[in-house]
């Protein structure tokens, strides 16, 4: 197991360099001068530009800049935000848990929908419940999530007035405040994944339900609930969990849009605002943070598989 972890970590090194180089390039080799971008069109005067250039080290050759960038990076220094004048790292660290909460919430929503619905569809194969499920799985992946978010806001926020539509709740205001703010964003972000996983659960269950041990369980006179959820689902769940893990990155990407729709104070909203305000250091930092999160998530999923399935370790 240890060898596997070490080998897996070593393969991450070139990728890590690639990621940092790309985020570095985003600013350094940007067309037009990064400085005039930052200062905006109205305040461009030569003196200001020169001062900022020296301050940011942009008058050095790119490899010196990259070295400095990496040097600061390993110390956790991602520069200072132009707009708020706060360290980028601190802003990212503040926002990151919110994005994690949203994506984990979306993952839970997706599994809570996909597993029972998929199982029922498989048990009711080629009946109305099954067709309804397949319809959901087709429509769910095709809906733009910003649009779904707005529809949910219209229905549950404005028409029914059941759930809050902006921002994040706080635990100090009580559990319901916290959970109620999370429901619509998590549903928005999780629906596409729920659709994919529902279809997968259904198909995996159909395979498993054809197995001999399921027939044995039936012959023993177990209730169909027991057969479906205890015997069959346990064996059908592996491909579903695998795909759920692989889709974590897609959730992170979708979080940018969901956070914008619901003004959710996470990393996605931070990077969109940084882009809108032309705050290059903050933008660079948040893109890097997203890539690192994604990489760590992929690593964790890989390690988890190695724990569950020993064959992978010797691949």
């Amino acid at each position, binding site marked *: 197991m240890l060898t596997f972890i070490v080998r897996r970590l070593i393969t991450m090194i070139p990728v890590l360099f690639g990621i940092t180089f790309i985020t570095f390039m985003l600013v350094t080799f940007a067309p037009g001068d990064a400085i005039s971008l930052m200062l905006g069109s109205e305040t461009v005067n030569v003196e200001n530009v020169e001062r900022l250039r020296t301050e940011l080290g942009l008058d050095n050759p790119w490899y010196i800049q990259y070295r400095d960038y990496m040097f600061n990076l390993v110390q956790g220094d991602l520069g200072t935000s132009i707009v708020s004048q706060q360290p980028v790292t601190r802003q990212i660290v503040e926002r990151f848990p919110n994005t994690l909460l949203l994506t984990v919430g979306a993952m839970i929503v997706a599994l809570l929908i996909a597993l029972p619905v998929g199982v029922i569809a498989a048990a009711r194969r080629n009946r109305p419940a099954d067709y309804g499920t397949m319809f959901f799985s087709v429509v769910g992946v095709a809906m*733009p999530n910003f649009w779904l978010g707005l529809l949910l806001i219209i229905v549950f926020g404005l028409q029914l007035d059941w759930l809050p539509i902006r921002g994040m709740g706080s635990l100090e205001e009580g559990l319901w405040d916290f959970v109620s703010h999370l429901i619509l964003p998590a549903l928005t972000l999780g629906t596409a994944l729920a659709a994919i996983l529902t279809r997968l659960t259904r198909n995996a269950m159909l395979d498993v339900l054809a197995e001999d041990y399921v027939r044995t369980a039936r012959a023993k006179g177990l209730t169909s609930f027991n057969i479906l959820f205890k015997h069959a689902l346990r064996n059908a769940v592996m491909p579903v969990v695998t795909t759920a893990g692989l889709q974590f990155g897609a959730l992170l990407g979708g979080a940018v849009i969901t956070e914008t729709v619901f003004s959710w104070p996470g990393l996605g909203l931070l990077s969109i605002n940084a882009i809108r305000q032309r705050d290059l250091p903050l933008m660079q930092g948040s893109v890097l943070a997203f890539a690192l999160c*994604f990489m760590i998530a992929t690593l964790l999923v890989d390690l988890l598989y190695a724990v569950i399935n020993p064959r992978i370790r010797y691949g």
Partner: protein
Amino acid sequence: MASEAVRSPSRFRPENRVLRAFFQNPLALLGALLIVALVVVAVTAPWVAPHDPLELDLLAPYLPPGSEGHLLGTDNFGRDILSRLIYGSRISLFIGVIVVGIASVVGALLGLVAGYLGGWVDTLIMRAVEIFYAFPFLILVIAVIALFGPSIFNVMWVLGVVSWPVYARLVRAQVLTLRETEYVEAARASGGGAGRIMLRHILPNALTPLLVTATFGIPEAILASAALGFLGLGVQPPTPEWGVMVSEGKDFIRIAPTLIMWPGLAIMLVVVSFNFVGDGLRDALDPRQVER
């Protein structure tokens, strides 16, 4: 070529079996018909659209669907929503096709080279693939577009360039198996150069899975460009792009919730159509994988 001379009677050709399997799949057929209809509408937009999509009528904003002369109503500027949807289909289809075009050509060539040449070339290209995979897709796209500025041109090339790794990986995997086949060995033995073998002998046999992936790539590109339009980082208003229309409508959801309805439905319909066709193609081309 010899295959021309000994071509079997047409009804036994594999293409026919594939086509028949495809058209016997009702969902695939439905998807194909919807796409054809959409292409016709997009091409003939100036003739089928009842109004100019940019024509303002400030005296008649927020007309409900079914109003006289405005089948789907009007938006906050009194522009005809149906006409805007019709013109929007041009943009979405165009972006989808161009993006997949760029991504599949770049990806296929790199995958071909990586798989066939192997060695350090392969390592280099595959590392690049891994690095691209290490970014959440939309994040990278947003960051690059933010630097180059939002425009339809930038949306197309950025989405195209960022999407190539899928195709590279796919083609490389195909090449690795095809490279060892006897007919490739024969081509090599008869003195075919690497470029000729790759393009004439290997690539055509790797096209089938590429076609399926490309079909699924179009709706992905359409969704991504709509998301960019929604964020204000894609096609710019007043161009009637569907994502832009949702974005413009979101400020009026209290007074006119139908404004955002139509463009969202349009996006969904296109995406579903392409997914149906993609599913149909995959099943038709691979008879072992029967959809239940």
